[in-house]
């Protein structure tokens, strides 16, 4: 291998190696490189197969996806168009989507303007508040409580991004966030009865609130475990550590029973709550271990200045804890988005997310590939985007120990 010696230079090892040593390295590195090349290729083929299969219409599914290499005409968007056509786009949906798009852009602009010099701050906030309230109301009318919750989550995200964009001077982040928020809003407004598309909406309506609730509840508890002394703290925290590995199967029957009594069975809030419950041990564990690493001088200084416990939490601990919170958010997002079991048990047919909707089609796998493949591809595309965008936090969370 000609590049073997060049590679050796990147490694922190002594430069002075004998000719024999370098020869041994070249011989051993060659096969290893080939092996990794083959393995890497093998690892990509399965996902690529699904991508190809999702673009091949029903008529050609009797042959394998690789036939499309010699016959590219087999690749069409027919399957995806068919999925879109399942949703009857009602007038309400169109109106609410327009409100979502216009409102989100207006909020982004207003927030950014508010941050600028020479604008009366109070006026800016009134505009933002008014727009938010109006959007919230129209979402509630069209999309129900769950859609309103998604919006309630989206607006602060947007405001934060706008502030950051202003302070950092970059518009790129603001544009990306605005687009993402718009996408989330429009998806959350898809009317029921639209097959895979409605399932996509349900996936969003289940995933977003469960992520936000988990961070809110988990961060508070983690702060208490890390920085507030109280009797029995260590014992209670050990119990939380112990709960890390409780299989969620243990929860299915008792909580089905509980939800039956509370009227939550089959609803989206029921599914959300279950995910929050079984996500909490990991959330508290991860965040507490992160928070405890914050230099205590920072907290003491804030407390000396007379800051309340809440202020210390929100102004010192939370901003410093953003990397850990990001890890947690990504984990919970992937976990909930990819979940099948919990949704299978607790989500009724109106609340079924993508995973459940696809699994419904699996009974006749061979005959339904033109529905299953694009559905599964959409299902996996969302976490892949999250994965590639936030890979660093994902790895960080993994290393901090996820044993679910």
């Amino acid at each position, binding site marked *: 291998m000609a590049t073997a010696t060049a590679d050796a230079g990147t490694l922190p090892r002594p430069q002075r190696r004998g000719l024999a040593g370098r020869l*041994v390295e070249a011989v051993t590195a060659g096969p290893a490189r080939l092996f990794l090349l083959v393995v890497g290729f093998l690892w990509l083929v399965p996902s690529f197969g699904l991508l190809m299969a999702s673009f091949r219409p029903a008529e050609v599914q009797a042959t394998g996806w690789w036939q499309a290499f010699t016959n590219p005409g087999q690749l069409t968007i027919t399957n995806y168009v068919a999925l879109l056509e399942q949703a009857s786009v009602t007038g309400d949906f169109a109106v609410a989507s327009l409100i979502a798009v216009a409102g989100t852009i207006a909020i982004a602009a207003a927030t950014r303007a508010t941050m600028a010099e020479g604008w009366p701050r109070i006026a800016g906030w009134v505009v933002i508040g008014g727009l938010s309230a109006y959007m919230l109301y129209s979402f509630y009318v069209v999309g129900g409580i769950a859609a309103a919750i998604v919006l309630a989550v989206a607006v602060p995200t947007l405001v934060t991004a706008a502030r950051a964009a202003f302070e950092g001077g970059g518009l790129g982040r603001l544009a990306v966030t605005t687009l993402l928020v718009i996408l989330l809003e429009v998806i959350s407004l898809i009317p029921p009865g639209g097959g895979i598309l409605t399932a996509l909406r349900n996936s969003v309506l289940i995933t977003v609130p469960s992520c936000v609730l988990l961070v809110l509840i988990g961060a508070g508890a983690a702060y208490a475990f890390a920085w507030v002394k109280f009797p029995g703290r260590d014992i209670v925290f050990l119990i939380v550590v112990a709960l890390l590995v409780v299989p969620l199967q243990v*929860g299915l029957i008792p909580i089905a029973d509980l939800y039956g009594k509370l009227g939550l069975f089959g609803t989206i809030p029921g599914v959300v709550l279950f995910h929050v419950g079984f996500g909490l041990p990991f959330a508290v564990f991860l965040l507490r271990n*992160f928070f405890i690493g*914050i230099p205590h001088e920072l907290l003491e200084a804030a407390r000396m200045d007379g800051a309340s416990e809440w202020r210390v939490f929100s102004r010192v601990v939370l901003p410093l804890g953003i990397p850990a919170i990001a890890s947690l958010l990504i984990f919970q997002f992937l976990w909930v988005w990819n979940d099948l079991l919990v949704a299978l048990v607790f989500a009724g047919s109106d609340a079924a997310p993508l995973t459940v909707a696809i699994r419904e089609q699996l009974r006749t796998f061979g005959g339904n590939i033109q529905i299953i493949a694009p559905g599964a591809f959409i299902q996996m595309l969302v976490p892949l985007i999250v994965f590639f965008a936030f890979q*660093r936090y994902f790895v960080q969370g993994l290393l901090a*120990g996820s044993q679910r």
Partner: protein
Amino acid sequence: MGNGDRVADTPPRDRPEAATAGGPTAVRVPEPPERRRGAGGGWKRLLVLGAFLLPALVVLGALVVYPILFSVIRSLYDRAGDAFIGVQNYETIFTNRQTLTAVKNNVIWVVFAPTVVTALGLVFAVLTERIRWATAFKVAVFMPMAISFLATGVIWRLIYDEDPNKGLANAVIQGTAGIIRQPGEYAGARASEEDALRREGGAFVTSRTFSSGDTAGLGLVALTPQDLPPDAGTAAQPPQAPSGAITGTVWLDFTRGGGGESGVVDSTEKGLPRVTVEAVRDGQVAATAETAADGTFTLEGLEGGRYTLRLAESNFRPAFAGFSWLGPTLVTPAMIVAYIWMWAGFAMVVIGAGLAAIPRDVMEAARVDGANEWQVFRRVTVPLLAPVLAVVLVTLAINVLKVFDIVLVMTSGTASAASAEVIALRMWKAAFGGARDFGLGSALAVFLFLLVAPAMAFNIKRFRTEG
């Protein structure tokens, strides 16, 4: 785990070693000093504490702790929850055929999946250490971690399709097998007169014997005209056999649209080219010939004696029909492969972080002492990585114990749905499938919980020693 204190102040990109799961270098962070507040602050403090802690404790209590207790008690009652039946549900787990199958399959999963994944992860982590495009490789292998079990199941069902025209695995095998063992041109053929031409193994053998100067008509049926090669000509009568030779015709003894006499070469019938015909005497092949486009052949060099004629097996060798990967015998290993595809990246990344934390000079010292790469790996790297490997194995074992989606997705609607079940799947089917047996379902859930309990102890122990 227990390393958050180290992650806290170091972004992982700058110092990957900071994130060693269970590394031996935990930094002890000093406890915050006790806060002293005036009397009267007590109630306020309690209120603040409650605001921070209570929501989590309530949710954990109601959704995690209460269900554990509920499940344990419920598992001692019958299907509907009316009668107390003691440990009968637990007895059912080990006597009922379905639950026993599930337990057995889970054992296979737990024995093979975590070990193979960890071993692969170790190999990948070590090999990528010295490759420049390691990042690209890591992304390719790590990516499936973000994909759901459902999508993984769908992806691998596409690969495992039994039909070699549709399933990639069988298509590849067919492609390679076809080079080594070409399928016969006339697979599926039968003799037109079965008492004259017997099937023997894959070959056809005549019942009577022939001697020099004889002619033989060897008719086959059960081939459609589309099955014939394009160069198949109209069948000819066997040519006159010269001395020392046997001649004959191998043809499709079937006249389209009816008519035609069985055992006779009729005018419109087709000859079968390229059939290998052998003359056999006392188990020895005395002569071999190949049929022409009109189906005729001439076996030469046959002096006295009587020979049976044989149409060689290679002509009738069936094409590769495809392994039934998701059939009852292969389904569990096939699913474990899909699982490995998904989780090898996890093992690679965690072990890779552990590897980065190993002091270089230890390995270098071993190399200076004359150890070769394998010895360094076996005697230095692996022992130093042992704690990380243990964490990966335990994490994977817990994960595999609860495996559910991938089995449900890959077996649903197939013949192996019943024989591939695992505990979590049986639990779901027992409780939420048709049976609605909450007693057995709870017992299975508690059983799973008990299997995971040692890992719980492992976690607590590790947490207490590392802080």
